[in-house]
């Protein structure tokens, strides 16, 4: 504040002493977005992307829950195979709901309960011994990662034996019930009052719907870059590779899940998954406003870079845990291209839209 006042004074000295110089514009102009365009955008996101993603995830979690019940009542190889497949389907559906981490999802701490990975083995054992506590958070002892381990680690007979231990059985049922009740609550809120207020929450202030969209889009993309690629590959950890920290390590779904999360991120950006065409989205907004990054259209630049890292991801074979050890060049290219995209998404786009990035990705723990 005082530095500012001194600068003002110095500038004024300059002014009074006729020290003229060419002045750069103090701030660029912020685009105006019509109220009606905003509500149409939010409505589109709510009805075409967010609610469908939650509806699918709820349904697949419920199928998984009944499959688990069925297996636990009639443990057999066939029933194990069924529940493993139901798990995979539900996990992939979840990836499309994961980006929307605000409002009811945040109220339910849905990420923590669904997909904090890698699983913390010690805490998982404690949760199995002491009973599942739905209020405990930040323990990395639950959700899909716990099932990934319990349903897939070992031979079929070992898994069946482990799952039918009474404490494991109790844990699994409590875990899936916790997941179901939380995701049902999120879906209901979107269909109810939260959905309505989301559509009406126009403007650019922190917490307004556009700010939530831009922030959560970035936040989700950064979790892909950091948790799914950066940490296992060793790029963020002094070159120490940690293949076992990939998402879906035990079910060997890491690559499929990473591709789904990137597809979900793209859907968030373009406003559609697969075939849907007529749509509103971040992409269409940037296009309509004709926002620039340098001399180029920001929307075109982002579109081009999304294709670049999507291509790198397509170059990977097998699983991510294999790739971080043996396809390091592709992984490095993938990570670098994602880092380049973050500059556009997290700096250029919010600046052009005059939206603040308000989330904090890495809380500091100084002592």
């Amino acid at each position: 504040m005082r530095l500012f006042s001194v600068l003002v004074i110095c500038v004024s000295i300059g002014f009074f002493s006729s020290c003229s110089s060419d002045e750069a514009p103090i701030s660029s102009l912020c685009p105006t977005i019509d109220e009606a365009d905003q509500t149409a955008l939010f409505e589109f996101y709510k009805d075409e992307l967010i609610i469908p993603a939650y509806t699918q995830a709820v349904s697949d979690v419920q199928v998984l829950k009944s499959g688990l019940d069925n297996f636990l009542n009639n443990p057999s190889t066939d029933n194990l195979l069924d529940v493993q497949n139901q798990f995979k389907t539900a996990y992939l559906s979840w990836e499309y709901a994961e980006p929307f981490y605000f409002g009811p999802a945040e109220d339910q701490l849905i990420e923590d309960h669904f997909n904090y990975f890698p699983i913390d083995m010690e805490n998982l054992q404690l949760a199995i011994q002491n009973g599942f506590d739905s209020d405990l958070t930040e323990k990395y002892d639950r959700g899909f990662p716990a099932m990934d381990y319990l349903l897939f680690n070992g031979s079929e007979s070992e898994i069946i034996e482990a799952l039918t231990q009474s404490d494991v059985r109790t844990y699994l049922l409590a875990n899936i019930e916790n997941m179901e009740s939380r995701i049902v609550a999120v879906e209901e809120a979107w269909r109810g009052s939260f959905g309505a207020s989301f559509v009406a929450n126009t403007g650019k202030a922190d917490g307004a719907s556009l700010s939530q969209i831009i922030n959560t889009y970035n936040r989700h993309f950064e979790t892909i870059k950091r948790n799914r690629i950066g940490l296992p590959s060793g790029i963020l950890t002094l070159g120490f590779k940690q293949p076992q920290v990939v998402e879906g390590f035990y079910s060997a779904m890491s690559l499929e899940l990473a591709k789904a999360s990137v597809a979900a991120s793209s859907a968030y950006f373009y406003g559609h998954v697969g075939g849907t065409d007529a749509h509103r989205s971040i992409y269409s907004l940037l296009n309509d406003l004709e926002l620039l990054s340098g001399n180029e259209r920001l929307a075109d630049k982002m579109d081009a870079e999304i294709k670049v890292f999507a291509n790198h991801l397509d170059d990977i074979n097998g699983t991510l845990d294999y790739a971080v050890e043996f396809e390091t060049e592709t992984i490095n290219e993938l990570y670098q291209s994602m880092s380049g995209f973050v500059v556009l998404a997290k700096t250029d786009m919010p600046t052009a839209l005059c939206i603040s990035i308000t989330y904090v990705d890495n809380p500091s723990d100084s002592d």
Partner: protein
Amino acid sequence: MNCEILIYFCKVLIRLNLNKNKKSKSPDMFNLKSVLILSIGAMFAFSSCSSDDEVIPTPDDSYDVPVTYNFDNVSYSGQTQRLAMMSEMSSLMKSAVSPDVTLDVNQLLAMYANDSDNAGWTGIYSKQLKNKTFEPVQADFETLLNEMAAISSATGEYAVGTAGTVTKADGSKTYLVNEKGVEPVQLIEKGLMGACFYYQATSVYLGSGKMDVDNTIVEEGEGTEMEHHWDEGFGYFGAPIDFPTNTDGLFFWAKYSNTCNEYTDNNKELMDAFLLGRAAISNDDLATRDNAITTVRNVWENVSAAAAIHYLNDAAEGFDDVAVRLHTLSEALAFIYSLKFNDGKTQNNDTIDGYLSTLATTSDITAFDLTNITVETILSVRDALALDFDLDAVKENL
């Protein structure tokens, strides 16, 4: 009258003001008022200058760098605690050479994670070594602590395949080694110097997560957030504030810097970089700070590489004395291993693992094997290190 005087005047004002800013969180109205009065004076004094100069005051060429680490609001008690904790752990582990001493693994693990009820500390500590150790290797150190406790009950002499003690030919020292000739206490102590202290200083505190932080709000006794992080990085070096004039009371890294200093001059290089970086931060000169970060990382890496070469020389020279050979090789392995934990490291993990595997058959710190080592192997790794870390000219002396 020209604009340079005006620019200088503005610089002085900004400098005064920045310094004031550092002193206190509360607004200082007197200061603002005096600035205003001075400014109005200035408006009249310099009222007719020409216009071509770029008037961008940059406050980065006009501050002093003190000769000792004697800045305002320095605090790194957490780091001092961890150095003391490591000292206590090392003393306890080294006491196990006595046939009468058997270590309790639960105590060692409690010390590592500071479970103070079971750690049996002499001092009082609120910090932890484990949670500041580079996360992917914490389990390796717990494995080594388990091994340390397991071999502490050995009462006989070492033979290949049997853990036990080895004593120097002159009888001056006895060490406890495992069945593969490796001295776990060296791997634990020097390995944690790398994976905890060096890692925290060079990768965490001097990394962007702790450096791209606020540098305006002064916490009494701790400085700004950025100043505090820098001080914490310095705290892990283990040197007194008037190092290297004063070389008494050196802990861990500062001690090994001093060991090789005659040939490397690392003491002064590293201390000067810490002093420069802190002064730069206090004067908001981030470009100079960034250079100091690079210097700290490079010189500190050199300290570790030089220490490794020093011990490899000792091992080659004293090769026929089993105790000297195994003890110094264990130290050398740990200093090489430590090279991995610097975010600005000049050699990648594959290269570092290569040195380790050549010496000890594997790069896995929990599975080193020194039973088939030769003088030729030792010297080949020494020479490779000397080339890679730019110590070729002094490799024979270290």
